[in-house]
């Protein structure tokens, strides 16, 4: 299973000054992946996966759940099958940055994709962090221009 870190942890890894309470990992929506959630929970020594519904489907109808939350001793881990903004796993992975995480390569969504997803989700908590994310992107773009 190859996932991409999204959400606020991705924003922090992309230099945004913020904190969070959970980790979001986008894995795409395939039946084979959904079946692996119990095994992942076991590997993380976490509780049984609980369905989470981040946002209704594109046509306004609730679809099957969009991800699962695995509560671990450290932080809750949200494994997402879909994310707001109708972006595919391949799209996000193509623009992701790779970080070394204890010897393992960790794909982290770009700040642009994190912003896009939060704009599309448009919940109160997403709107609250958008200004600092946009400011961070502006600073990074300005620094990139100078290189």
């Amino acid at each position, binding site marked *: 299973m190859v996932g991409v870190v999204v959400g606020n942890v991705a924003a*922090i890894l992309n*230099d945004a*000054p913020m904190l969070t*309470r959970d980790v979001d990992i986008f894995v795409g929506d395939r039946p084979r992946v959904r079946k692996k959630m119990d095994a992942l929970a076991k590997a993380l020594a976490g509780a049984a996966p609980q369905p989470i519904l981040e946002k209704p489907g594109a046509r306004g109808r609730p679809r099957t759940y969009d991800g699962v939350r695995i509560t671990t001793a450290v932080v809750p881990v949200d494994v997402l099958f879909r994310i707001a903004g109708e972006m595919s796993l391949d799209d996000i992975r193509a623009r992701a940055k790779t970080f070394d995480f204890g010897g393992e390569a960790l794909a982290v969504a770009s700040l642009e994709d994190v912003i896009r997803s939060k704009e599309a989700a448009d919940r109160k908590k997403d709107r609250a962090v958008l200004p*600092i994310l946009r*400011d961070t992107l*502006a*600073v990074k773009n300005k620094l990139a221009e100078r290189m």
Partner: protein
Amino acid sequence: MGRRGGRSRSEAKRAAVRRNGLRGGRPRNIDLFAQRVRNLQTELGQELPGIDPDDLNLIIDCLLRPVTQRKFFVYPLKGGGYAF
């Protein structure tokens, strides 16, 4: 090998100690880091006037700080309050 007269520091270092008042004559790493943040903030602040200066300071702090030194999570404490 010591210096003539038993001096343990060069004249340049002794002069630096007098100048900046810091032990050893060299600013601490955290002072150098804070200075780098302030310098970059001064430069970028003029180019990005729409960004709140405090936010800009935090953004630059995060940009310059190694990923391993960043804080990610906020934890609620039993007696109230939060830890990072």
